[in-house]
């Protein structure tokens, strides 16, 4: 892996909340801190995963990378160039290099367009290709690439005439039209049936290998993230709290939030029917308008001690092997071990469930 294709430093996005009259009088403003200082880099040819629960800011981060939203603070560099505040032609160029696959392939295609029109659109926008004939050839090639063949059959169809899997293939084909350097895939398979999910993911992975693509894979589903990504970042309330190689994160998670997420995942193995699941977390995710002081996870953490909320927020420190974690007590927690964790956690669950 060579130079990073994308570098995000302290990426921040705050949305203003509509003020009440008293707030206007007092000159107060509240903000939804959707993304609150996120730093990461994506190497060329890798699949970088962003996981977290809804509202953790993973989709917003994706949109910031796409420059679909204005960046409040921080810097974003694509292939060494600062793209934080680009506009106009430079922005159009940026959007040629970075493409997005959306969660709902049906909603992301204009229902009035045929697949041909959908795929032609990027070419028309960026005026790529000599003439229609050349573009036509490309469209057919890409359709073959995503295994929607024969292309003639699919070109004339409207999105609603395709099955879920076929739609996501078409949506993927659209992002490939411009030969992008980075593809942001926002929950590309969450709306797709389980049996086809794997099919789409393998196709995406195959394309990545063949064409040397780079993905940012945004998901809430740890199981597919493990299979699909090389590196994984876990987000909580607008911040990355743990980051590292996908296998390490899942098998040797250190942050208590990551552990809770992993504990919550269902697995298709027998003998768990009569066991209460161990989900070591308490309470519910707080609103992004009111982020707790200190470590933002402390109100839900089963291991939090006074220093967790009294002192500065922990930084995302490298602990070796590219594994980074933002927790002050990760060593102690590791030491507490499984035995203590289960008893404490199940108690916590019973009470807070």
């Amino acid at each position, binding site marked *: 892996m060579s130079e990073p294709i994308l570098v995000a430093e302290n990426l921040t996005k705050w949305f203003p909340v509509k003020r009440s009259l008293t707030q206007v009088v007092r000159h107060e403003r509240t903000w939804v801190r959707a993304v609150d200082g996120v730093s990461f880099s994506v190497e060329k040819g890798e699949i970088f995963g962003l996981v977290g629960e809804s509202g953790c800011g993973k989709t917003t981060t994706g949109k910031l990378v*796409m420059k679909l939203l204005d960046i409040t603070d921080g810097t974003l560099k694509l292939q060494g160039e600062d793209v934080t505040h680009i506009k106009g032609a430079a922005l159009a160029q940026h959007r040629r290099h970075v493409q997005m696959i*959306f969660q*709902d392939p049906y909603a992301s295609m*204009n*229902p*009035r367009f045929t697949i041909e029109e959908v795929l032609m659109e*990027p070419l028309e*926008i960026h005026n790529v290709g000599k003439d229609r004939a050349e573009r036509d050839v490309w469209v057919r090639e890409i359709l073959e690439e995503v295994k929607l063949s024969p292309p003639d059959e699919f070109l004339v169809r409207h999105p609603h005439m395709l099955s879920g899997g076929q739609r996501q293939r078409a949506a993927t084909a659209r992002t490939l039209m411009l030969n992008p350097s980075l593809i942001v895939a926002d929950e590309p398979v969450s709306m797709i049936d389980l049996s086809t999910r794997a099919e789409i993911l393998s196709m995406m992975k195959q394309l990545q290998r063949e064409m040397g693509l780079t993905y940012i894979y945004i998901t809430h589903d740890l199981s597919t993230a493990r299979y699909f990504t090389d590196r994984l970042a876990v987000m909580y309330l607008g911040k990355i709290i743990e980051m590292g190689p996908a296998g390490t994160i899942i098998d040797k998670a250190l942050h208590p939030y990551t552990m809770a997420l992993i504990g919550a995942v269902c697995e298709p193995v027998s003998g768990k029917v009569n066991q209460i699941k161990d989900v070591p977390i308490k309470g519910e995710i707080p609103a992004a308008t009111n982020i707790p002081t200190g470590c933002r996870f402390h109100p839900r953490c089963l291991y939090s001690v006074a220093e967790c909320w009294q002192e500065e927020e922990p930084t995302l420190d490298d602990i070796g092997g590219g594994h980074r974690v933002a927790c002050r007590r990760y060593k102690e927690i590791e030491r507490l071990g499984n035995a203590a964790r289960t008893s404490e956690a199940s108690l916590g669950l019973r009470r807070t469930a």
Partner: protein
Amino acid sequence: MKRDRLAQLRSFWSEFRQVRFGMVGVALLVVFLALVIFERPLLTYRDVNSRWRDMMYWTDSPRYALPVWVNWFTSKDYATSAVIQAQNVQEAEGVRRTTMEFPYEFKAGRPPSDVLLQLALTGQVSLTLDIVRPDGRSVTYQKNTSSSGSQVLRISVDQNLRERVFQMVASAEDPAVAASRNPKQINSVGVLFGKAQPGVFSDPQVLDGTYVLKLDVTLVGATAKLDSAKVIVAGGVSGILGTDAQKRDLWSGLVAGTKWALIIGLLTSIISVVVGVIYGVASGYFGGWIDSLMNRIYEVFVSIPLLPILIVLSAVFKPSIWIMITMMCIFFWVGPVKTVRSIALQLKENAYIEAAQGLGASHRRILFKHMIPQLVPYAFASMALAVPGAITYEASISLIGLGDATVVTWGQILFDAYSSGAVLQGIWWWIVPPGLAIALMGMTFAFIGFAMDTILNPKLRTR
């Protein structure tokens, strides 16, 4: 490319044909267009376009005549209108005397509304008119007239012959009744065509047969001459749609009004809906301060009342239909704005708008390729609804005397009817046809609009 479009149009048409009410709309549109294209041969009064308001043009017609086809449904037929040309014209040499006869074959359940003799004369003339009835009774009218130039003389049974007609049949009536009647207040035409029997004044029974109007003209002096003469029977029925209070032929008016209805309705609605849709979409799509500004401008336009502005403008400019259409467009475009804006607010939340942005599409592309096509069905529907609005608006402006006096419009006909109290008098043939025409025109576009909606909205379609 061209062949592509053609193929697309063809497939669109083949789909359109399957929508039944859409075809009804197209059929109606074809009828209206036919009325416009074949206007010349369809008009019974050729000059209606230029002389609709010219009283002289209509003098020969009966007032408030019913449509002719009413006779198909009544047992007592109304007399039809007719123009009778002179027969047996005899010109005596030397004496300069001309006699002519105008036979009128009367066979109807009800008498005509008037019989008129119309002469064009020059110089000094003396004339005698004899009306001889089938039963031999006759009325005689004499008149001497002179003028330096040419003049048109009209002798009306109803206006000029009342007393003579009274006297003609007075002998048949009960003397006591006859004496009690004021000759000036009889239904002269009814009596003229009534059987000479008691009750002829109060309840005349029609007398069928040939009535002959004999005219004897003596020309005095060298310059005097008789240019033309004709007898006009103003019937109870006239033309396909009857006549109004000004004796105008409503069929001709309606046919002549079709093109204006199409022009006013289509032009106003198309221009204003196109402007309104683009404005509304832009306002909703851009949001923020642009939206606020556009909203304020919109509010200014909705709060200005159109009518006073039109009155002022009509005082400044010469009232013309084109100025009126322009003014209506300037104020009508606000119609769809609010709805379109709210639809646009929903549309822009769609992921495909975001996807297009992500692909680097320009605002213009997103507006015109992704958002406005979604609004086509709505635009057609609001166009269809704006059509009757524009037509009636034009009509109400005409009502206060600010209409374009050089054209005939359905609205003007309808408003003339209202102002003459046609509703109260039960002159249905003056109100129903223009009203129905306006409604049908609206329906035409509504049907076409809905049909397009089902076709252009692929979600309603199946595989």
